[in-house]
């Protein structure tokens, strides 16, 4: 059962020329959408280093959205094509790493498509709500609980052993 109260966190990387501008247009047009997205502006979607995406996930993002110009329309000719290729491999990698690939989305949104920003953000928010939290920082903490536990244990066992040897 998806938790309706769960507020997914989406980090979005928008290219300056198309998608960021489209998001501005959505604003000017007063389209209303879910407040779950935080936009990081880059000049081109080609600047999106896969490290940024994994870093966002590892720091608590439930989803990552990349927005670029439509294929053929990149302000820098083919930056978005490079993004597409990386994205495809990233999806495969995420699958291998046990992260639902729907948590990573690539959308081509032109400067004129303010409404598409609204639709995509809303869709993705709902999708992530259905998937539930990814919550990697919490998982890291849980994973490490077993290692942390030994501090006290180790001290205890050392004392025991020393007593035995004495």
């Amino acid at each position, binding site marked *: 059962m998806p938790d309706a109260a769960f*507020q997914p*966190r989406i*980090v979005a990387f928008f290219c*300056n*020329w*198309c998608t*960021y*501008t489209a*998001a*501005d247009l*959505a*604003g*000017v047009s*007063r*389209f*209303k*959408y879910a*407040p779950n997205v*935080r*936009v*990081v*502006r*880059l*000049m*081109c979607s*080609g*600047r*999106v*280093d*896969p*490290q*940024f995406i994994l*870093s*966002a996930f590892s*720091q*608590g*993002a439930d989803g990552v959205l990349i927005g670029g110009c439509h294929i*053929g*329309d990149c*302000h*820098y*000719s*083919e*930056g978005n094509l*490079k993004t597409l290729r*990386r994205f495809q491999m990233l999806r495969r990698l995420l699958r291998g790493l046990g992260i639902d690939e729907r948590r990573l989305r690539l959308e081509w949104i*032109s*400067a*004129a*498509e303010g409404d598409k920003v*609204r639709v995509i953000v809303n869709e993705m928010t709902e999708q992530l709500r259905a998937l539930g939290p990814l919550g990697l920082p919490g998982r890291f903490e849980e994973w490490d609980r077993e290692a942390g536990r030994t501090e006290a244990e180790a001290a205890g066992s050392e004392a025991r052993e020393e007593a035995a040897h004495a």
Partner: protein
Amino acid sequence: MNAGAGTEIRTGFYICHCGQNIAGVVDCPAVAEYVARLPSVVVSRDYKYMCSDPGQELIKQDIREHNLNRIVVASCSPLLHEHTFRHAVEAGGLNPFLFQMVNIREHDSWVHTDHAAATEKAKALAYAAVRRVRFHTALETKRVSVHPDVLVVGGGIAGIHASLTLANAGKKVFLVEREPSIGGHMAKFDKTFPTLDCAACILTPKMSAVGAHENITLWSYSEVVKVEGYVGNYQVTVKRKPRYVNEELCIGCQECIRACVYKEAKFPDEFNVGMGKRKPIYIPFPQAVPQVVVIDPARCLQVKSGKCKQTCVEACADRRAIDFTQREELVQIKVGNIIVTTGFKLFDAKRIPQYGYGVYPNVVTSIELERLVTSSGPTGGELLLRDGRTPQSVAFILCVGSRDYRTNRWCSRTCCMHSMKLAQLVREHTGADVTVFYLDIRAPGKGCEEFYDKSLKDGIQFVRGRVAEVTDWAVTPEEEGKLVIRAEDTLAGLVRRIPVDMIVLAVGMEPQSDAQDLRRLFNMSCGTEGWFLEKHPKLAPVSTFTDGVFIAGCCQGPKDIPDSIAQAGAAAAEAMALIDRGYIEQEPNTAYVVEEDCSGCKSCIPICPYTAITFDEAKAKACINPALCKGCGTCVAACPSGSIRQHLFEDEEIMSEIEGVLSHA
């Protein structure tokens, strides 16, 4: 003046209310209070209008009084006011790039309704910016000179006016027109609304001026095929199609046309929208500029088969202007600015089959009627039906293809007035009864409402309602031999059948069919309808998202002649502003290789679309030419050893932004 390494970071944060635009949704004082407690923040304020003079003054004053070395402003989109605030930061004595902007209007208050969530989002974005700005360093903008020449693409009235404005100011202009003559749609018009002055009389002098101007290089029958470079420094390749006539030698005497082996003109003539005839060698219309004949390669026997007596060459005699050896030629030019005035195409009336265009010969489009009532047209200005009779009754159907979800949703803005003008001309020429079927009459221009009044007084009938269909199926004797319009009269509240002799379809405007190609060529955007997108609908109506590329006239959206001219003048002024300043300040967001880190793996080199990255064989390192780098950052993301960095978009800056938006719970 700049914070160097090791200097304590002292950040000033400002959140703008933007009146109620932001403050109506985001709790600005709460955000300011939250940011005030963040590390490195020395000053945190909220203010009604940060972009106002007192708002900017606040920043300058704080920089001095609190010794600030980083500034963050949370307000509208950086695409709108980043320059404003960078300027204020600089005026306050700091390097303008020690600044970061947070978009909490377009990306927050305007798009969210939940005030608490919007406020939290503003906090997260502000937090991210405060973290990010710590890594900012002082940067210098690079100045690049602006080539003083301008390219104007499209020789309609907008292109003509832009060219003349620039040329009269002493700028060199290249005007490239696809057709053999400039003049565009306006050259086909008989008279212009609402003054009813003759289109040719006002256009022809401007066309001749273009042809004669020493500062204008007119390349008709030519197309731009490639655009490289950037604002101030574009390299443009123009394809000059062979017209098989040497433009320098032809004097426009037209002896060759008379001498053509085709004794009769037998091919449809483009200028008269196919209603007139021309020969394979022709001049597009009497006032054409350049006054040079052109040979249609699809029709000319010599071009097609090489087997013609070449009577034209004979007629040209020792002028030797006709040259069948001409081949397509690619010319390269350098310009600093480009003005795109490529116009529109008319809606194809065949797309609405129920109106019978192409089926009933007496259903014509508005532009066809234009040619039929003008004295330079195929009938010499006599308005006749296809069987030679004078029409007794004429109906106009407005909004053909416009304001309709099934075709084009937009209003073409000119068809109401254009149709009323034609209606008056029809009355004048034939005395026929005229009925206009309309949805709404749109007559907002200067003198246009008065023109509408005049049309009413002249006895033109207006029926409000979308026409359902046009048939030749008579159900009453008076409908016999006529075209019958079936339409709902929404004012009378009944469905009417009106028999007429001729029907004029007021077809709307559409983007050129190759608008998408042009958009790519010039690196512009299109709106969803396909019109070229201006940078800002109000504040930058002739600029595009590519600096140094401007748009004017109907390629940006439907408009009438005065509006096209006004935009053309504006575009010319924008180009001149850049030319006269002489230089462009480039955003210093270029990528750079850290030489001591680079392993020379060459992974980055094929990534760059501008060949800005080369491999220095001697050093065995990659090397980025900052003049060619456009700052996309694709190579930065691709460098497998993290040895390429990008000013303004450093990894640390972006990573701290990611961390920031996520660590605020």
